[in-house]
C-alpha cells in the first residue's frame, strides 16, 4: 500500500535531474568520440 503523498519520492526532480545528467553525458560522449579521438594521439 502506498504511503501518504509526503512519503512519495520527488519524481519530478528525479526526471529533471536524469534528463540534465543524460544530456551532459551525451555531450561528453560527443566531445570524446567526435573531437578528442579524431584529433589523434599526442606524442
Amino acid at each position, binding site marked *: 500500500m502506498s504511503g501518504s503523498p509526503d*512519503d512519495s519520492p*520527488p519524481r519530478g526532480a*528525479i526526471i529533471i535531474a536524469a534528463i540534465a545528467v543524460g544530456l551532459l553525458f551525451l555531450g*561528453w560522449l560527443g566531445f570524446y568520440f567526435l573531437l578528442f579521438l579524431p*584529433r*589523434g*594521439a*599526442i*606524442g
Partner: protein
Amino acid sequence: MAESPPREPEPPTERTERRWLLAMCLLLAVMMAVVVATSLAHALHPPSNVETIDPLSLHLAGEFVENNLGAALEPDGSVTVRLLAQQYSFVPNCLILPADTSIKFRITSPDVIHGFLLVGTNVNTMVVPGFVAEVRTRFAAVGDYTMPCHEYCGLAHHDMWARVAVVPKDQFSQLGSTQRRRCAIH
C-alpha cells in the same frame, strides 16, 4: 532483557538518494571504462621523450644552431622540424610543411618554460629549458595553422606565436632547403 526499539522505516527520500548515488557511480564507471578502453585501443599516451640539452650552449653547437632550425626532409620522406621557443618568439616563426607526411617536431627552450600548440592538431606539449620536447603529427589538409605559446612565459607572452603553412606534398618537394625553413612563398 529489554527489547530494542523497532527500527523506523527508511524515508523514501533517503532511498531515492541512495539509488541516485548508485546511478552516478555507474555513470562514472562507464566513462572511466570508455576512457581506459579507447586509450588502450588507440595507444594514447602523453609525450614521453626524455632528452636533455644544455640551454646555455644550444645556440653554439649541435642540432639547434640557427642554420639548422626549420624543416628538414629526411631520407625516408618524413620531415623533421627543429624549433626554438624563446621569449617572445618561435625560431623560425613561420614554417612550410607538406600535407599527408609524417612530421616530427623537436623543440627546446633556452630561457623559460613555453607551450607548443598547433591549433586543430594533436600537437600540444610543454617546452622546458634543458629538455628536448618531441611530438609527431601528420597534416591531413593544406592550409595555415597558428602556433601560439600556451604557457605564460612573461610580459609579452601574448605576442608569442608562429604560423605553419601546410602545402601539397609535391609543392614542398620542389622547394629548396632554404625555402623550407621560412615562409618565402607566402
